[in-house]
């Protein structure tokens, strides 16, 4: 069955293979986004000792579908004097980089849509493009609150991108390659070979900057509903608003997946090198214990849960505190750790740099 499908796939022209690959990534991703919104409401609900949505479908499982239908049927309102073209293209500009970045993500061994050499640079460049949607949305809305939200967001994203970039420099120093698949290969061996231990400060810096880059609580001053109503998307309604929402959750999943790939070895199994080789040859359990996409999804889910957990736990940072954390705490930490890492690499400290 599976071989037959693979043969059919190999026989198709390259462009068709790429298009099918895109569908295989985007459709599950969009479903994951929909159910992340549901998971968020449930998780925060339980964190607040409530039950969360439980009315639509069995145990509320159809809630995201109902939400999507509601948003699809609502009117997209254009504010007076708003720039029509920019106003409508802003949501597209937000979601396009969030989806395009998935092209270089390896889901399993060799399972990336585009196995490019400069994959890490590509990811960094695309995540830095997402800010345009927010800036343009704020400016094209012709609204003071939206403009204030977009300016806050622009300053925040540009500041945290530096810390994020430095954390990625640490990863590529350790891996010796910009290829995302190669970074995972460099972490293989056992759970101790993952970059989590040697790059622990960079791991925290990367995840914190990731939360800031996605404008999530506690760094969600760009929305700041208690101060500037809803920030950059205050004038958006219907599907235009929903696209911003989709982009935010797609970015969350992307940051979680990247943290799992860069620091926790992506699809590598944590049992590699610990269990005897015979354990991986058991009928069903062996396949589960061995490397595979399920480990990647599991690791991603852990970080995704952390996003929701943080939202229910931390109060929002004040704007000057965000700037101080980014510039005066995270960036010095990365610079110090890059120096430490340089020393470790120079002296071949094992098992990572041996």
């Amino acid at each position, binding site marked *: 069955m599976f071989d037959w499908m693979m043969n059919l796939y190999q026989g198709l022209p390259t462009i068709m293979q790429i298009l099918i690959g895109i569908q295989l990534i985007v459709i599950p991703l969009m479903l994951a986004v929909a159910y992340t919104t549901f998971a968020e409401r449930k998780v925060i609900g339980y964190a607040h000792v409530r039950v969360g949505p439980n009315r639509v479908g069995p145990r509320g499982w159809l809630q995201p579908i109902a939400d999507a239908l509601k948003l699809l049927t609502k009117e997209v309102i254009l504010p007076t004097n708003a720039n029509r073209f920019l106003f409508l293209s802003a949501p597209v500009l937000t979601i396009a980089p969030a989806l395009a970045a998935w092209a270089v993500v390896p889901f399993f061994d060799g399972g990336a849509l585009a196995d490019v*050499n400069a994959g890490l640079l590509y990811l*960094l*460049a695309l995540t830095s493009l997402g*800010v345009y949607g927010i*800036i343009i949305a704020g*400016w094209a809305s012709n609204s003071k609150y939206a403009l204030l939200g977009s300016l806050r967001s622009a300053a925040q994203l540009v500041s945290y991108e530096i810390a994020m970039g430095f954390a990625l420099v640490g990863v590529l120093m350790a891996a010796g390659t910009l290829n995302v698949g190669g970074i995972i290969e460099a972490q293989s061996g056992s759970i101790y070979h993952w970059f989590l231990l040697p790059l622990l400060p960079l791991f925290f810096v990367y995840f914190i900057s990731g939360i800031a880059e996605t404008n999530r609580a506690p760094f969600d001053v760009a929305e700041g509903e208690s101060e500037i109503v809803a920030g950059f998307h205050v004038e958006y309604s219907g599907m235009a608003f929903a696209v911003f929402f989709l982009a935010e959750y797609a970015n969350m999943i992307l940051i979680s997946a990247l943290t799992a790939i860069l620091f926790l070895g992506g699809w590598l199994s944590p049992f590699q090198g610990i269990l005897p080789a015979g354990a991986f040859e058991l009928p069903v359990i062996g396949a589960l214990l061995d490397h595979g996409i399920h480990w990647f999804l599991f690791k991603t889910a852990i970080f995704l849960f952390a996003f929701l957990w943080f939202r229910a736990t931390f109060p929002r940072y004040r704007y000057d505190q965000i700037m101080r954390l980014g510039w005066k705490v995270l960036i010095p930490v990365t610079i110090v750790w890059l120096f430490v890492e340089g020393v470790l690499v120079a002296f071949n400290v094992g098992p990572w740099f041996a």
Partner: protein
Amino acid sequence: MTFELVLFYLFGAILLGGALAMISVRNPVHAALFLVLCFVAAAALWLLAEAEFLGIVLVLVYVGAVMVLFLFVVMMLDINLATLREGFTEYLPVGIVVALAMATVLVLVITRYITMDVPERAGPEYANTEALGAILYTEYVYPFEIAAVILLVAIIAAISLTMRKRPDNKSIDPGKQMAVSREGRVRMVSMPSEKKKAPRRGEGSGTRSPDGDDESK
């Protein structure tokens, strides 16, 4: 015409159109966005020329950081176009001289290389990032380091120019805020508890408790 050639002309046309639109549109925000479009088209051309490092870094640095700050400033400014246009005829001669000088340099450079043979395509194992790194950190290591130091000096100069203590600035030292302890804020007072008085007439069980639990009503 191969597909790559079609892409080249497509992105070339976008680049030229974007550049023309950038200098001709009236709205400064639109001009900045057209410049972004130019950068993206130029990055695509570089990708076609197998210079993926340059292309991606162009997007990362110029589109992702520099132009964001540009837009940031342009959106905040209240630009009066009339005052901007005032000195147009006055500066026109200088502008023409600069434009001619730049055009001459461009023509000289292009005519020098226009007879060059088409460079051979590198194989699929060619990595532009590695090739650039290998040459930057060996042959050109001193110019590279000097350029880095000059940039660092520029950063420090820019920061020191803008760092000034304004007397009307009410910012608080975050270190002090972090160091706040319970003892500095709260004083625990030991007080004997009040004796419960007998309820007066008219204030039966319906009286509010002194801590005001309004939510329960």
